[in-house]
């Protein structure tokens, strides 16, 4: 990197957290010129105002099709972009699409300078997806715990059980019916509400 100037990178992403994770990674790797665009209105004009060498966009973003216009030569397009990776480099395409990110490279940037950026993108996007998954799991665990607490309360009251006995009943029923404890707990709550 040292001798050459850092390429200018635009991140188009409506998720501020994911963009921040990516931006941080890029800066750590020495890419200092990073701009995040969140607003999709007049996207091309915003991009041209920055005049980047590389544009990174998440695949959940419908505006990806807007960027495809930059392959065309027209009044609206000033610096046409090149293909984002080499035809032969199908592994890179696969990895980036699976991670949920796509890169557009302005004509003239050397291939060996693109590869590390793309790799970094893929790993940061994957890290973000994992983070989100964990968050979802934690959320649903928390939710489950609340439901189980309520179901235990109902069982204790209706059947005169201790807290431990109520939990054992829930767990053994879940095992016998091959369901999650949370599901059994939910059906107890539903049933008791119907019987009110």
């Amino acid at each position, binding site marked *: 990197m040292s001798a050459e100037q850092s390429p200018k990178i635009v991140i188009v992403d409506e998720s501020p957290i994911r963009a921040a994770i990516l931006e941080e990674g890029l800066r750590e790797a020495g890419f200092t010129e990073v701009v995040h665009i969140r607003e*999709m209105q007049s996207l091309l004009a915003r991009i041209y105002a920055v005049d980047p060498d590389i544009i990174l966009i998440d*695949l959940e973003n*419908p505006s990806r*099709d807007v960027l495809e216009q930059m392959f065309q*030569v*027209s*009044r609206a397009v000033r610096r046409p972009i090149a293909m984002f990776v080499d*035809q032969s480099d199908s592994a890179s*395409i696969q990895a980036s699409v699976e991670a949920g990110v796509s890169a557009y490279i302005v004509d003239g940037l050397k291939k060996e300078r693109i590869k590390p950026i793309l790799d970094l993108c893929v790993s940061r996007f994957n890290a973000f997806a994992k983070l989100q998954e964990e968050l979802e799991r934690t959320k649903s665990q928390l939710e489950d715990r609340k439901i189980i607490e309520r179901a235990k309360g109902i069982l204790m009251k209706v059947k005169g059980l201790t807290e431990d006995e109520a939990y054992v009943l829930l767990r053994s029923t879940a095992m016998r019916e091959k369901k999650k404890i949370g599901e059994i707990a939910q059906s107890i709550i539903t049933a008791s509400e119907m019987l009110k």
Partner: protein
Amino acid sequence: MTGPLRIGFIPLVDAAALIVAVDKGFTAVEGLEVELVREVSWSNVRDKLNIGLFDVAHLLAPVAIASSLGLGHVKVPIAAPFNLGINGNAITVSPALHAALMEEIDGDRFDPLATARALARVVAKRRKAGAEPLTFGMTFPFSTHNYQLRFWMAAAGVDPDEDVRLVVLPPPYMVDSLANGHVDAFCVGAPWNSVAVDLGIGHILHFVSDILVHAAEKVLAVRQTWAEKNSETVAALVRAAVKGAAFIEQPENRIEAARILARPERIDVDAEVVQRTLDGRLKISPDGAMRESGRYLLVGREGAGRPDPAQAAWLYAQMVRWGQTALSPEALVTAMGVFRPDLYDAAVGQSAGTADAPGGSFGAFAGPAFDPRDVAGYLASFDVARRAR
């Protein structure tokens, strides 16, 4: 095959035959297990089909051709064994542009030559007044919408690259962009034109069937190599799509079809709007004026499902006309080879000779009759064109 077929689609009414084929169980009857995956951009659909994350896709016909030619992206040969829709797009304009056009129009307001000439006068006036050029939204560089807008305005001498701006917009953003003045008009498929009219912010100026009587719109696309390895699956899928299309075309099934398509995990729009599109009976202006056409969207009737290579040739000719690629006889053959009536015929068990006559005539309102054997001669007849750089 392992696991279900993964089929990508964009939430548009012209995915109808595919969605109904799956949701009415026609694919299951054919022994196919299918997972429909809703996507947000044509670039995603194309890329996921190309790298095998999708086995099959609802795809813009020109994207299938561009992919096979390696235009705009990596080259992956595509086969289209079923045509998902003929026509189905419309041009919607803002109330302000509509008023300006109606002031200038000399002739019938549904005559595309009359409206194109009116547009030429509006464009000239704006230039004289020093106003910004008009901006038209369309869905993708390689899209029927792009070519239909260009074909229409160029017929009256409006250069789509010099006299106006054409910008790509994702279909779900079209309506907002028209409302806030980011664009003055757009060409898009259903339901978005109706949504704009219902909100009182747009007038449907043309059904694209005004411009071209018979135009291939979306195809069911598979990778060519995949089609070769999975010929039984392709045939089963085509049969299911044929049944889906036939179901939709029965007027007594329209309510049910519209309900299936309207569901949140499919197109996610009011069922009544979907039905308007299928019936070809559309509200065209905020004051409630209706327009009916038997040609608005053809899902299966008039042989719409059978891919017609002449349609692929016409789309390729548009790519050449607008400078997206240079004319080459080999590329023309490749483009025509994307549309596969042979796979369709094999699936439904008919021989080519007995097949429904293809739409044949494009019924374009301007220019000479199109002949795939003389694309150069056809293109030479147009004054407004670009050369590939």
